[in-house]
């Protein structure tokens, strides 16, 4: 970077002494933060540090805070998100905020419709404009499609496109890449850098180290609702950054595992097929076969929409008649009959959408974690042995370093990352033989990630087999013993640990393999 802070004009936003409480609990204890034109300001910190809360204050979601917020030098206090948008602040929130039942075009223009007289919507212009925005964002979908029908990564891209289409002086992105593939991430980064070049301010929240160091002009770290400090990346090497975030030293988070001699196969899947949910005759997963051994981690990779998630759901039995194929668990026939049956047999799925498919926000941490294992904690009449249950949950959440006010607090009140931990804990408490993990570290901070990698190693050491989907290439390469790459729903390559590299995975995912085109079929 060539500019120095002294030469820069007034910050776009500057926050001083921000305090925010939910009920009696204060979660921000006087935070200072500012963003200057033409910089990418990364906000980092552990799960629950208060990052999302801070940016919700900047973007007008929370109006009840104390402290001073200046926008363009003038004191402001937004009552509604619309006010912040009008003041030139565009935000992509951590949780998806699209209306699934409305079209892509409607979603793009929601809240700022192009209208004629009497509030009449100019649909023709909106559709045309939407097509242009989608093309810019590299999204291959029709403006007339329902947003809810898009895969989750496209939804995320759509949301980003929507925010970027607003002519904002400040763009806030809260973990935008947690659901994106590498290619999409690259597209996004290019656009962020373009915005920076135009002199706009960008606030970027992420738990991914490499993203921080690729993008950041400055880094601000929060811990437990307090400001630890702000620094430029050259003055804050990764080890130091981690210490700022976690307050302690961590071992190498992504240390490679030693490959174990593979044991007997735990799960064998043969000729798995999944029909498309709405297009008859189309297959989204076709002839996928693999085996995963006890104590082995099988990575499942593919571009967005390649059918990896559908594969796991199909094995778990959550797709009903859309899925067909055979499977064996520890040598016995495994019917892929449904969640209940699969869990009882020891196959447990963690989905990549904890909000829609994972958690009930009103349930207490205890109830939420024990939900899949209640049979173990209750007698024939269904009477729950609550002391036993509490002890088991408490032990597990302690191992996960869960940051929750109490085990009786509703899950919805935890930070995103801590919610993810309760979700993982639920899967583990069910004593699985095979764990199907779809983006298990989505939205989890470095400290917790290290914890989870450690735990995963412990689990496989105990003989659990894991099938892992992750969009973080480093994580995939570090954790997997083998990697199965899908291309358009078909197996494109199976890479042994030594053969696996970022390039090899990407090449296979895009349909080129060393040995020719993927899948063996024309």
């Amino acid at each position, binding site marked *: 970077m060539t500019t120095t802070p002294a030469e820069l004009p007034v910050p776009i936003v500057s926050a001083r002494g921000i305090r925010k409480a939910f009920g009696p609990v204060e979660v921000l204890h006087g935070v200072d933060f500012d963003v200057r034109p033409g910089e990418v300001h990364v906000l980092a910190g552990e799960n629950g540090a208060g990052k999302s809360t801070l940016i919700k204050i900047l973007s007008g979601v929370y109006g009840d805070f104390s402290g001073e917020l200046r926008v363009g030098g003038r004191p402001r206090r937004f009552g509604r998100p619309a006010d912040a948008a009008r003041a030139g602040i565009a935000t992509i929130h951590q949780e998806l905020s699209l209306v699934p039942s409305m079209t892509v075009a409607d979603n793009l223009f929601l*809240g700022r419709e192009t*209208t004629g007289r009497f509030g009449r919507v100019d649909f023709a212009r909106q559709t045309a404009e939407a097509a242009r925005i989608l093309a810019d964002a590299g999204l291959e979908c029709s403006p007339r499609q329902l947003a809810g029908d898009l895969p989750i990564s496209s939804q995320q891209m759509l949301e980003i496109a929507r925010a970027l289409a607003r002519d904002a002086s400040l763009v806030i992105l809260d973990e935008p890449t947690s659901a994106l593939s590498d290619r999409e991430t690259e597209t996004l980064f290019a656009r962020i850098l373009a915005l920076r070049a135009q002199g706009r301010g960008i606030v970027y929240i992420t738990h991914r180290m490499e993203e921080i160091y690729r993008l950041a002009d400055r880094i601000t770290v929060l811990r437990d609702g307090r400001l630890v400090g702000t620094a430029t990346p050259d003055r804050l090497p990764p080890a130091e950054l981690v210490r700022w975030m976690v307050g302690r030293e961590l071992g190498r988070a992504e240390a490679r595992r030693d490959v174990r001699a593979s044991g007997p196969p735990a799960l064998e899947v043969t000729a798995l097929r999944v029909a498309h949910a709405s297009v008859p005759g189309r297959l989204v997963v076709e002839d996928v076969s693999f085996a995963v051994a006890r104590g082995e981690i099988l990575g499942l990779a593919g571009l967005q929409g390649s059918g990896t998630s559908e594969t796991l759901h199909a094995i778990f039995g959550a797709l009903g008649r859309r899925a067909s194929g055979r499977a064996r668990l520890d040598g016995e026939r495994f019917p892929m009959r449904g969640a209940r049956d699969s869990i009882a047999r020891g196959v447990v799925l963690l989905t990549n959408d904890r909000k829609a498919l994972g958690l009930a926000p009103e349930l207490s941490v205890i109830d939420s974690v024990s939900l899949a294992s209640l049979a173990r904690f209750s007698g024939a009449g269904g009477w729950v042995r609550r002391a036993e249950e509490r002890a088991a949950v408490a032990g597990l959440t302690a191992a996960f370093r869960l940051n929750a006010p109490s085990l009786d607090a509703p899950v919805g009140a935890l930070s995103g990352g801590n919610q993810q931990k309760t979700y993982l804990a639920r899967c583990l408490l069910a004593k699985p033989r095979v764990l199907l993990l779809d983006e298990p570290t989505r939205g989890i901070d470095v400290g917790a990630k290290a914890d989870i990698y450690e735990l995963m190693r412990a689990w496989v050491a105990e003989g659990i087999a894991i099938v892992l989907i992750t969009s973080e290439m480093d994580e995939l390469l570090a954790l997997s013993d083998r990697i199965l790459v899908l291309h358009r729903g078909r197996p494109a390559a199976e890479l042994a640990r030594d053969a696996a590299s970022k390039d090899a995975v990407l090449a296979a995912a895009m349909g080129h393999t060393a040995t020719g085109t993927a899948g063996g079929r024309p």
Partner: protein
Amino acid sequence: MTRGWRAALGEWWATPVARALVALALMLLIGCVFNADGAFFKWSVHRDMLRQVSVYGILACGMTVVIITAGIDLSVSSILALAAVSFAWLTLPEGWPAALAIPAVLVIGTALGSVSGVLAARMRIQPFIVTLAMMVFARGLAKVVSGGMKITNYVQEPDGTSHLVPMPRIFGMIDSRVLGGNVSIVTVIFLLCVLATWIILSRLRLGRHLYAVGGNEEAARLSGVPVARTLVMAYALSGLFAAIAGICQAAQETQGDPETGMGYELDAIAMVVIGGTTLAGGKGSVVLTLIGVLTIGYLQKILSLNAAPEATRLMLTGTIIVCAVLFQRGR
């Protein structure tokens, strides 16, 4: 050629409007079979059916708007009664001209609807409860306005004397027919309400906002949709439509009855849902509601023409609601 045609038909068949229309067609078929000695083939029977469902249909228009926001409005029946009573009171004992009385009544309905809207949107009370409370409250208010009696053209003066006032022309006008006596005015009013609702829902910005709030309120808020204002508008519209329905009811009954309309809210909801608009919010349309209104209207007409006993009627109605909804969603 044939394939394209077939595929197009298959696609059309999957749309909610197609399913609703087929349900309606089945109902008409039943009517043709149980035609009560040919009565079902007379236009006057259909005309009267249309008149009968009009008041429900007007309520269902407002209900559609509210249900699209993922809400519900139980108070429409009581606001209808309050409007009927107020209209009768203003025009009969008070002698206001229709040109003044009608706007006044519409303002009352809209105001009560807005109160529900504000309580639901700003105070964050669930619509079911807000409008349940409003349903009880407005019924009480209707009884206060009417002094607990029906308001007819037999007017009692404060000094105890009483006399008949002539029925204002507006009553007869609303309860008359046009197009050579073939279409009732209340049916025309109903269709105008459908048209207005259609424009709001599918042509105006407000419509986009209504769908967005119903589809995902949090997302709508974060996208800058004025959620509270949109919700208030929805309930205000519902109140307005209920007031229009109340005026039609009073004109047809030639009186203002504080007990009128009891239970209409459930009919209106059933009509909306049978059309294919789901209570989950975020989708649906008033065209579906129109079809739902006709379907239930014909059901009731057929049962009535055939003098089905009450027990049978109730059991059939319950069964048919379930079948229609099942059919709506396909096997």
